[in-house]
């Protein structure tokens, strides 16, 4: 028995070591492609001359930490920008720490509240209210009065960067959502792949035609994610003229007839028509679209890189106009300064660099995001990427989801997501689910919960 136990122990340890090794390799991050490094060397050396005068006489580099959640296919774009900043500012070094958004948002407030945390952080602009109200991030009015010109930012972005009329962030990116559609699946369903739907009627028709509910090759007309995702259902609600919260953020609009009608229309399509799986996360929806199992998806510019690389035959178009007109989601990641930073000047320098013409032209060209500036019209770098103008074109129809609400994440995760899931899982009628959500939402808005 003893020898067999020993042999067993050896086998186990060997396998353990092997699995640890495998997981260590799997966890390693892929090297950032260096494609832009070469072509930008000329610009970099020019920038280096500019900043050369500022170099610290002691020669000691200031180190900044930058926490964010850019884990998507657009990640290399941000990494390249940081690298470029470090190359052009020899007296400063920004170390970038990328983790998934949810774990970032779990550790960021704790560390800031206890006197630690990063010098720079990035998170969805909806969270500015919460962080600013708790004084975890620094007000940036002096940066905007000296260095960053708010007149070059799109108007909607300017208000998204503020809390109580004070600036607390610069935009790290600027996204709108478009309708992604698979051209091959459109063709196969007898639809014109060069004429994407432009109204809800056409859209629903296309969704029904590309849905195959029986047979071995099941296929969905649309991949409609309802949780852990960039908001998709809100676009459908807005398209019908509904909303979740009143414009003054004081009362719920969950039982508004327009809201109710929108949710009824689309949940019927999902339940009875089987046009989309229910309970999808954003990542699962992307997977369905990327593997050709879903014909359409609403998504932001970050997805273009991955789909193109996967060799998918797709295009993007504005979200089809609903009864209330054209509308889509605006989503911005905010770049903020942690309250415990000891290098405010360097933080400002980084922010100025981030929203500068060169940096934005490069970021847009590489990722497909519209630039955060309005004055880059004919920059050749933007033209390299055919997606940029398409995402930029719908900017005027784009709305933020639950803007300016301190309890933004609670409203989303505890009220809106469960209401929609209760309906699509047939656990509650539209009426009952929205009435329940209405009560919960009003409680939150009135500070009762």
């Amino acid at each position: 028995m003893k020898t067999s136990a020993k042999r067993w122990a050896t086998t186990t340890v060997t396998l353990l070591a092997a699995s640890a090794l495998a997981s260590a390799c799997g966890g390693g991050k892929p090297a950032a492609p260096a494609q832009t490094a070469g072509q930008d060397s000329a610009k970099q050396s020019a920038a280096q001359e500019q900043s050369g005068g500022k170099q610290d006489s002691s020669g000691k580099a200031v180190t900044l930490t930058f926490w964010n959640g850019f884990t998507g296919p657009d990640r290399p774009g941000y990494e390249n920008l940081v690298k470029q900043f470090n190359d052009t500012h020899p007296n400063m070094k920004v170390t970038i720490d990328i983790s998934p958004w949810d774990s970032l948002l779990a550790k960021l407030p704790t560390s800031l509240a206890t006197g630690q945390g990063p010098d720079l952080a990035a998170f969805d602009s909806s969270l500015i209210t919460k962080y600013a109200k708790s004084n975890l991030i620094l007000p940036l009015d002096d940066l905007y009065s000296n260095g960053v010109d708010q007149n070059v930012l799109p108007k909607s972005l300017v208000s998204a960067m503020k809390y109580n009329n004070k600036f607390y962030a610069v935009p790290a990116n600027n996204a709108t959502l478009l309708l992604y559609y698979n051209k091959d699946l459109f063709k196969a369903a007898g639809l014109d792949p060069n004429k994407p739907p432009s109204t809800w009627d056409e859209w629903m028709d296309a969704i029904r035609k590309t849905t195959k509910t029986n047979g071995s090759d099941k296929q969905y007309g649309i991949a409609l994610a309802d949780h852990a995702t960039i908001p998709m259902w809100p676009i459908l609600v807005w398209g019908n003229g509904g909303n979740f919260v009143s414009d003054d953020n004081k009362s719920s609009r969950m039982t508004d007839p327009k809201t109710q009608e929108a949710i009824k229309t689309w949940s019927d399509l999902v339940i009875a028509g089987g046009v989309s799986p229910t309970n999808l996360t954003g990542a699962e929806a992307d997977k369905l679209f990327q593997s050709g199992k879903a014909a359409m998806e609403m998504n932001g510019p970050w997805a273009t890189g991955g789909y193109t690389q996967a060799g998918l035959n797709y295009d993007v178009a504005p979200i089809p106009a609903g009864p209330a007109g054209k509308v889509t989601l605006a989503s911005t990641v905010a770049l903020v300064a942690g309250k415990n930073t000891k290098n405010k000047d360097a933080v400002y320098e980084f922010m100025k660099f981030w929203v500068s013409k060169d940096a934005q032209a490069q970021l847009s060209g590489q990722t497909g995001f519209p630039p955060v500036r309005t004055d880059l019209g004919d920059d050749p770098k933007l033209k390299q990427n055919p997606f940029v103008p398409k995402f930029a074109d719908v900017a005027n129809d784009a709305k933020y989801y639950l803007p300016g609400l301190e309890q933004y994440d609670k409203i989303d995760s505890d009220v809106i997501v469960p209401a929609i899931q209760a309906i699509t899982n047939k656990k509650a009628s539209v009426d009952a689910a929205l009435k329940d959500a209405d009560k919960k939402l009003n409680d939150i808005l009135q500070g009762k919960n």
Partner: protein
Amino acid sequence: MNIARKRTSVMNRQKRAAFWFLLPSMSILALFVFWPIADLFWLSFHRWSLLDANHAYAGLANYVKLVHDERFWNAVVRTVYFTAGSVPVGIVLSLALALLANEPLKGMSAFKAIYFLPVISSFAIISIIWSFLLDPDIGLLSYWLKAAGFPASAWLRSTTWAMPAVIAVAIWKNVGFNMVILLAGLQSISASLYEAAKIDGAGALQRFWSVTLPALRQTLLFVVIISVIASFQVFDQVYVMTRGGPLNSTETVVYYIYHHGFELLDMGYASAIAWVLFVVVFLITLLQLRLFRFNETD
């Protein structure tokens, strides 16, 4: 008199020695277990948002809220479901495997290693792999199940099937650990007991009921208690596989604590839930000790 004094001094010396031997581990426990539990208790009587420097005393408000919180009760029901689904099946399976592993068969060490491998693998990695396997559209396992005639299910995306899937993975992951402990218990049973039973004419089944099970009682008790405690605290697997979804159908109590503490940053309420969980686990453990008559020797 003299003898009595001598005895006390020996006892004192033993006590002193025990104190010094216990000190290192007790101080670690005190710092990282007892102190946080006490602190948690204090937190649970406050409005304690991580984002707010002002921590007002709230009395029993968090506990009152908890009583009226439907989602908390849902989490309790889901946790009991998980425990009832994973513990009995898991223990029967691991006992069967332990009995098998106790037989002197060829290739037994490889067999044991295979069942022990999930135990030492990271739960996060395992959960990701199982999520892939169970994916209703591109998952290998869901494809096989469909081919084998099982009705098509969205598994982790179905409010009905997500929990059974999570339970199955938990059993698969933990069965090896329980097997090893039970195997150790089996090997400590004296062979003479089996010989005596054989001579008395007991069959294999009777030997199992009358010799193996009673002799294994202490080991089984240990396995049951740690399995129940672990099931009541299930978190990482739910976090990676389902995030408590769909529609809170896999939301366990610890996941709900995480949701309030680290997603909504409401530490006061999260602490209140944690304390309730602590008390419940404590009571259940006491009950189990009683049921298995821990201190009696028959």
